[in-house]
């Protein structure tokens, strides 16, 4: 068992980085590893609930919205922490905008993740 930490700085609509972070975390959980996400900057927009994108392909990037994917990661044991400063900067209301299980943290949480992780993947 390894500990993997993902730092996600890209938003849901401007790069594939959130999706790569999801796919890698998904595969890591399936293989029995421990997975932690730290969402920073526009990465904090990724697990926002209530997003809806019309006319989307079932095979594309938005076969379901990012929050659904992160809900599943949470249910399967991933830890998901969003940087509180970045959350406030973006006018996100963590109480109502994030699904249960998404924690709001601060940079000491990132420091802890970096201390504990065997691998850190910055996306």
């Amino acid at each position, binding site marked *: 068992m390894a500990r993997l930490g993902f730092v996600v700085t890209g938003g849901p609509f401007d*790069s*594939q*980085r959130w*999706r790569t972070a999801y796919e890698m975390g998904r595969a890591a959980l399936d293989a029995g590893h421990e997975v932690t996400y730290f969402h920073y900057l526009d990465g904090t927009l990724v697990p926002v609930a209530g997003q809806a994108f019309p006319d*989307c*392909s079932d*095979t*594309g*990037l*938005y076969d379901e919205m990012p929050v659904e994917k992160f809900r599943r990661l949470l249910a399967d044991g991933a830890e998901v922490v969003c940087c509180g400063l970045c959350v406030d900067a973006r006018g996100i209301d963590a109480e109502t905008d994030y699904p249960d299980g998404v924690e709001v943290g601060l940079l000491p949480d990132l420091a802890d993740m970096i201390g504990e992780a065997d691998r850190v993947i910055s996306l």
Partner: protein
Amino acid sequence: MKRDVIVLLRRAPYGRVHVPEGLRAARGVAAGFDRHDLTAAFVADGVYAARSAVDKGALNMPGHVADLLAEGGELVADGAALAERSIDESEVADDVTVLPGEELTARIRAADHMLDF
């Protein structure tokens, strides 16, 4: 007033919404009250989306492209950008016209308005 509008699609397509949503905008602008004349131009890394091998379904392109063509819109690609990326003209999708670099930039200058995505 009816305008001649060119929409540049300039980003690599997969992983971001700019190519499909740029096409959606082009189609929407073509369908508006003024019935603007629309050209959607694949330039820079956008030319990767003009290739027939790209998974257009996964990119949410087919509906927007069909609608744009139905509105009389046109799809073109920058020959200079293709050449720079070693993409042969034969790799470009049938519904896209490859223009030599100078013709593409002449179209940009000739349009009334330009948008980019």
